[in-house]
């Protein structure tokens, strides 16, 4: 059965190839069908594989071809099928498929339709390969390929300067992370002499014993890559800007799949991470900080998609926090549930944007529920799931994650507080968004408001399907610690257990935590309701409590400006200096040599006066010199 695994990436790839080659001239609108078919095929095969592998989750591999052999470096292209891969595959293909379906409706009138449906399967292909990689290099290849696809999709509407800028920003920020990843990869090659997962994992303890500290370095470097891809502070800046892309893209890339690559990778390398407590601590701290940090920004954003974007950053932070305390399963669990409800929220906001004729500013919405009931209902489900209201998907995973954090020791308390605060804020901004968008009096012009309409069936059906997911996906993790997903992934994360990072909570603890979670979430919703529905206190007055703080949040802690000024500006200034240096100094020296030669020639030329007596003088002088030399030699 596993031998057909190559079909999973191949089908989207074929769809990409067909659409890319023929889309512009022949297929046009039909590209949508082909892309959907391809991704659906991948989904079906994934499900079949999952079912077939349900009992034994032993890793299996499919060799394709030899990539390169150079000395003792040899690398084959091999697909890997194991529990973690399959979980990821299911999430990726299913969410992707929904997005594909949805996009047929959303992109209907776009002149770049065929292009869109060329990029999408390519992206899915890259993501599938990323999770199916069996060695670090292939992982890296598609790690970058995913970045490329995000570049293509974010900059899809390339006539917009902002879209192009966002695309470049996304790619570059990712590249910075990738450099870390690449260094980590090279270090692994240097230390382990191999890039294959299994070999690395089995050698890890030996290496740690032989060269203490090197693993920490490697893990941190890899984590830099993960920070880039999964938008962790301080490399998160690309993600909110990436909302310039068409909304389905946001759903696909920036909620469900691409950004999870970092989480996946760290989870994949759990045998390495568990050996380095320093690295783990860093991961956890960065995650927790990012979670809170992004959530605070999310509070003040007015662009519906940007709120979701910061929310994503925040949720990813929570996942890293879980990874950092060794709760790998919890992280993956949250990853999966998050994929559903965040996908749902993004698609829902897309539906809103679609229905309101490209309106994205929540301050100019309100009262849309009546006009778009399906969208509204599913959106609220998604929002509840995100806030972590029992029994929706988000609740289970977030709860487990926070619990694991609390149990992980001294640092855990701090992390837990940060995570809990982030959860609280999550609920606040989520419902701020829901209230501002769907409820209250509309702030749209009457003319425009009257044109607001529910999206077509092809868009709402995916919403409904995802809503079902957002409701039900959490149950794979129920009961806590012993759900389907726990059993399934148990072997994959065995290393954490060996390292003593897994703490089995008592039932009381679980129940208490559930209660606390729920309270936090409800509190958040209540705050949002108070401020944004009842306007007591009014949002403005809350903002007025600490104007500098508010300004800080609205301006995203000025981080973008800082990067623009210091990194981009600095690089350009330096580039300008270098260019000047090159033109005037390096080339100047070259030209100077030419000038000197010319100058010497010009000087010598002046001796050619045209006057006979000077010529004769030259002869005589030469003679005198020759004789003088000889007289000196003779002595």
């Amino acid at each position, binding site marked *: 059965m596993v031998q057909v695994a190559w079909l999973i990436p191949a089908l989207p790839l074929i769809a990409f190839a067909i659409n890319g080659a023929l889309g512009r001239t022949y297929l046009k609108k039909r590209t949508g069908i082909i892309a959907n078919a391809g991704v659906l095929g991948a989904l079906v095969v994934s499900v079949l594989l999952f079912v077939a592998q349900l009992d034994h989750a032993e890793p299996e591999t499919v060799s394709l071809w030899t990539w390169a052999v150079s000395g003792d470096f040899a690398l084959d292209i091999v697909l890997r099928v194991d529990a973690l891969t399959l979980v990821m595959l299911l999430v990726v293909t299913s969410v992707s498929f929904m997005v594909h379906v949805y996009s047929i409706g959303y992109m209907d009138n776009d002149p770049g339709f065929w292009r869109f449906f060329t990029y999408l399967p390519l992206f899915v292909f890259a993501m599938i390969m990323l999770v199916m990689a069996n060695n670090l290099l292939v992982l890296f290849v598609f790690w970058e390929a995913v970045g490329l696809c995000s570049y293509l999709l974010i900059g899809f509407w390339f006539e917009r300067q902002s879209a192009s800028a966002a695309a470049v920003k996304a790619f570059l920020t990712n590249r910075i992370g990738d450099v870390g990843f690449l260094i980590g990869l090279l270090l692994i090659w240097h230390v382990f002499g191999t890039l294959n997962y299994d070999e690395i994992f089995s050698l890890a303890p030996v290496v740690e014993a032989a060269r203490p500290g090197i693993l920490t370095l490697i893990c941190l470097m890899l984590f830099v890559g993960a920070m880039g891809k999964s938008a962790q502070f301080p490399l998160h800046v690309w993600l909110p800007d990436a909302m310039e892309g068409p909304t389905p893209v946001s759903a696909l890339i920036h909620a469900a799949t691409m950004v999870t690559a970092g989480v996946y990778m760290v989870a994949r390398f759990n045998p390495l991470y568990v050996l380095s407590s320093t690295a783990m601590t860093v991961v956890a701290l960065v995650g927790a900080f990012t979670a809170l940090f992004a959530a605070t920004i999310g509070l003040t954003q007015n662009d519906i998609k940007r709120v979701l974007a910061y929310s994503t950053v925040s949720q990813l932070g929570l996942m890293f926090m879980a990874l950092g305390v060794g709760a790998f399963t919890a992280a993956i669990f949250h990853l999966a549930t998050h994929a559903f409800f965040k996908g749902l929220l993004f698609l829902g906001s897309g539906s809103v944007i679609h229905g309101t004729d490209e309106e994205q500013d929540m301050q100019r919405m309100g009262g849309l529920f009546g006009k778009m009931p399906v969208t509204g209902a599913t959106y609220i489900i998604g929002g509840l799931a995100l806030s972590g209201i029992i029994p929706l998907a988000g609740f289970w995973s977030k709860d487990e994650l926070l619990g694991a954090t609390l149990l992980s020791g001294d640092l855990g308390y701090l992390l837990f507080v940060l995570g809990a605060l982030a959860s609280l804020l999550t609920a606040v901004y989520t419902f701020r968004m829901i209230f501002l968008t769907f409820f209250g009096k509309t702030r749209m012009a009457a003319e425009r408001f009257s044109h607001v309409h529910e999206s077509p069936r092809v868009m709402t059906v995916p919403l409904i399907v995802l809503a079902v997911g957002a409701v039900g996906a959490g149950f794979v993790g129920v009961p806590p610690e012993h759900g389907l997903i726990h059993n399934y992934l148990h072997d994959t994360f065995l290393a954490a257990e060996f390292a003593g990072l897994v703490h089995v909570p008592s039932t009381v603890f679980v129940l208490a935590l559930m209660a606390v979670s729920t309270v936090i979430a409800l509190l958040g919703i209540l705050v949002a309701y108070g401020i944004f529905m009842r306007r007591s206190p009014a949002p403005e007055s809350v903002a007025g409590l600490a104007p500098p703080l508010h300004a800080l949040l609205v301006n995203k802690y000025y981080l973008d400006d800082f990067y623009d000024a210091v990194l981009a500006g600095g690089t350009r200034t330096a580039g300008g200096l270098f260019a000047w240096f090159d033109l005037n100094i390096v080339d100047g020296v070259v030209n100077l040599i030419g000038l000197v*030669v*010319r100058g*010497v*020639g*010009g000087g*010598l*030329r002046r001796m*050619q006066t*045209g006057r*006979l007596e*000077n*010529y*004769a003088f*030259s*002869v005589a*002088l*030469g*003679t005198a010199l*020759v*004789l003088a*030399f*000889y*007289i000196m*030699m*003779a002595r």
Partner: protein
Amino acid sequence: METQDLISILPEIILTVIAASVLMVDAFGGQRTHRSLMGLVVGGSVIAILVSVVARVDATSAFGGMVLTDGFAVFFKVLFIAIAALSIVLAFAQSKDVPFAELSALILFATVGMLLLGATGDLILLYLGVELTSIPVYVLVAIKRDRFRATEGALKYFLLGAFASGLLLYGIAWLFGLTGTTNLADMALYVQSQDASSPWFLLGLGLLLVGLAFKVAAVPFHMWTPDAYQGAPTPSTAFLAAGAKMGAMAGLLRVVVHGLEPWQDMVLPIIIAVAVASMIVGNFVAIWQRDVKRLLAYSSIAHTGYMLIGVAVVHTQSEAGGLARDAVAAVMFYAAVYALMTLGAFAVTFAVERRTGGTDMENFQNLGRTSPLLAAAMVIFMISLTGIPPAAGFFGKLYLLQVAVNGGLTWVAVVLVLTSTVSAYYYLRVVVNMYMVEGQPRLLPVPSSTAISAVVAIGIIGTLVLGIYPTGAIEWAQSALEEVGKLALTR
């Protein structure tokens, strides 16, 4: 005097006879005889070449050691006669403006001098050869009497030349007095048996070297060169560069190889210094030239410098055997190559001069379109002068570099390559003007000259053949030296 002796100078006699008959035919044949004169010269030259190759004597010398009859002499005889014939053919294109018969005769007389320089084993012959080469050439430079520049160039050349030959003569006088002979080989043998380090010897030696260095136009005795080259009518310049100068080079080689062996420590530094100075001055100053003839004059100074490296190497030591022989062969080969390419370059310049009335860089502009073949030929000559394959100049330089490195003169070889990088600049500037500058010099209604084309064609063929398959020429040069049984070459 024996028959052997006469046979050994048969080519010289033939040339003299041709010169005389040319004058006769012209005197009695009226105005329209230029074509037949040229036929006479070319035919006679071919015969002379054949005779020099075929009519060999058994002995290595004739006239009591005064005339050497070895392969070296034959090599240069063939080369010089060919150069003379080509120069006369080139001059034919201006036969309306100059007294062609006298010009031909003068070239032939000078050639006799060159042949003697190549065959000399005695300082008397050297002196006379130098003078016989120079005096007709003074006239050749001035032959367009109505042009001031021609007479100016000739005057400078003449006065300095006479001055230099005075120095040469004085030096020879001392060498004669201190050794009691003027025969080069006897001189070397005598000195080797005596104490050779007396400063008085060096006085003679130094003046001898100065005189010869002047004739080959080496820095700092070069100053006449650009003026004479530029002032002279182009065919005369061609002969001056390819002929007279190479004749002096042959004479210098003879002196260095046969006579100066005992003084090698003294000869070497001077020649190296002069060579380096020539390369630097020639190449650096040429950068500034706008007149192509003057440019080629400076380049000829630089090429003298290159060849002098080979001359210097004759007296160096190396672990690899046969170095001296290789060094001489390298200079011989280079002389042949240089003669061919410089003749060709001057021929093209001459053609341009006829068409546009000048030899300035501007006159070459757009030649690539107006006369593609001529331009292409010039490109090849320029490439060859630069020393880039597949033109012959490359192998000439390669061989010189090889002997220089072998002789331990690597730093001089480095100077050579660095200065020839500089040379690329000005040679390529000619190409730039022909192809890459949009300009259009005024074209004169002059019919193209078959004579010039023939010289250009021969130059091209020679340059390319020697550049692609130089084996024959190099082996000839090397084998020519096997018979030279003198001290220097048996090491």
